[in-house]
């Protein structure tokens, strides 16, 4: 799939901009704070109805205005689609595909899927477990409605349980029975989440090992593993996972009470990353970490491609300058005019370094144009 055209009205610092794109590589060159990331962000909103970096939709509206609109034309394998997203501070958000209202963001992702790769991702390997969970969650939520449902219900159940833990001290009478009904909800949605994450990690493991080898030139082996925050055997099935989580919740009840929050469950799980058996999360050189995240992102791209049976659009925000020659070359070889790619950079040299004759745009103070 690729984005042919986009129109922005009162989105971030764009008052009214219309741009058409190449199905290959599009490079956006401009100084800092001109609107390069804003432009990629608008593509992300078109794909998911949400920003990947803003806290609220309100932040996306051009200052002093109270509504924004994004319209895009997307070409998929079979047909061309029109997506339209409107947000009004008062009336809320409104999403249309080909003139029909849609209510689930996964419908959008079927039409336009994106993978974002930005400098923050370079922290994923060494960063907090939350960052690694987000690496899995952000894509799975988009492409798998069952995952999105389990995620949403789990999150609510967790908030309810934590409210009870926080609020009710020991004085509360029915505390145990109150917690028990939420434990049950937590365990059943949590088990679903864990099973789906494990399935995804299983595929990503194979894909990223392959890509790690391609960047590093072989020799070293990358391995991913889903690490639960409680004892839970892999491949024993959803029902067994649910039982394991239930018993872990019961065992940690006292600790959770004293902390006022639930200490086990998929919201505390991690994605373990090893090279040659060594834990990259705490050891490993910067080079290994960068190669690992690059391999994982490219693996995710292929994983999403398999799920939606089409190629997602790749958004590379300021990462080219963070990668060395070897890794940049690898990234471009994956893209190789097959995947529509948006690259932002402050350095005009990046455009010149790409051999596949990219389309280059200049971005300046809320305006963008093709050079």
């Amino acid at each position, binding site marked *: 799939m690729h984005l042919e055209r986009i129109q922005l009205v009162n989105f971030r610092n764009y008052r009214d901009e219309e741009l058409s794109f190449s199905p290959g590589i599009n490079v956006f060159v401009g100084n800092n704070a001109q609107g390069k990331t804003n432009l990629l962000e608008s593509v992300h909103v078109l794909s998911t109805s949400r920003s990947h970096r803003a806290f609220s939709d309100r932040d996306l509206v051009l200052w002093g205005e109270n509504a924004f609109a994004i319209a895009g034309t997307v070409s998929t394998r079979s047909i061309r689609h029109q997506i339209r997203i409107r947000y009004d*501070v008062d009336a809320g958000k409104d999403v249309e595909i080909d003139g029909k209202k849609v209510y689930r963001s996964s419908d959008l992702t079927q039409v336009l899927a994106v993978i974002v790769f930005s400098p923050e991702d370079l922290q994923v390997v060494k960063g907090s477990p939350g960052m690694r969970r987000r690496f899995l969650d952000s894509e799975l939520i988009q492409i798998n409605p069952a995952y999105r*449902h389990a995620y*949403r219900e789990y999150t609510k159940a967790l908030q309810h349980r934590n*409210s*009870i833990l926080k609020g009710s001290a020991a004085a509360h009478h029915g505390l145990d029975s*109150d917690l*028990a*009904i*939420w434990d049950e909800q937590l365990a059943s949605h949590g088990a679903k989440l864990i099973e789906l994450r494990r399935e995804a990690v299983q595929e990503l493991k194979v894909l990223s090992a392959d890509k790690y080898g391609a960047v590093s030139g072989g020799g070293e082996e990358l391995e991913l593993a889903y690490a639960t925050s409680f004892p839970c055997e892999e491949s024993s099935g959803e029902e067994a996972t649910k039982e394991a989580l239930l018993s872990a919740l019961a065992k940690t009840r006292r600790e959770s009470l004293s902390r006022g929050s639930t200490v086990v469950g998929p919201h505390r799980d991690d994605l373990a990353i090893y090279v040659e058996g060594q834990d990259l999360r705490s050891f490993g050189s910067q080079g290994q970490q960068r190669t690992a995240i690059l391999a994982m992102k490219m693996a995710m791209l292929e994983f999403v491609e398999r799920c939606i049976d089409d190629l997602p659009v790749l958004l590379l925000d300021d990462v080219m300058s963070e990668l060395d020659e070897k890794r940049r070359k690898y990234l471009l070889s994956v893209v190789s005019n097959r995947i529509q790619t948006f690259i932002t950079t402050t350095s005009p040299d990046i455009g010149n370094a790409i051999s596949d004759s990219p389309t280059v745009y200049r971005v300046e103070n809320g305006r963008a144009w093709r050079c």
Partner: protein
Amino acid sequence: MPKYVEPVSRLIEELSKLPGIGPKTAQRLAFHMLSSPRDEVVRLAEAMIDARTKTRQCSVCFNITVDDPCEICSSADRDRTTICVVEYPRDVIAIERTGEYKGLYHVLHGVLSPMDGIGPNDIKLRELVARMKEPVSEVIVATDPNVEGEATAMYIARIAHTINVRTTRLAHGLPVGGDLEYADEVTLSRALEGRKEI
């Protein structure tokens, strides 16, 4: 900042307290009323006052009613040994539309939701437990199939077990994560038929 004259700004202020109505919509509604025929607006105001003052909650099932007990609770044709537990009065309407169900109702007026500070004592659960102690053979829990609805159903089931009342739950056909209110009649009557023991 310049303001509208007092009666208008007061109307806008009151309207914007309504759920789902922001200041802009409130303003639009207010001006719509100002430009409508006088008796149309009077009818609207009267309808609001009537609805609020002439109705109450049934003292048995807590559905909205004019007479107490309500029509369903006082009907001789209903099966008094079956109670269908729902979240809101709108759910009673939805199930009545199917024409399948002949038992009584119990409206909880909410679901358990600790993060909003709603516990068992904040909805009509104690009243339900009291009703379950009368001769009742089945309690059908028709709360929404989301996490709060499921937790509430489980809470009810646990109490029912201790007093030997059979509890069932609507199961088949309901869209996962959906609301009862939006289910069509066919889906809903199928869900009613396929209810499961919990």
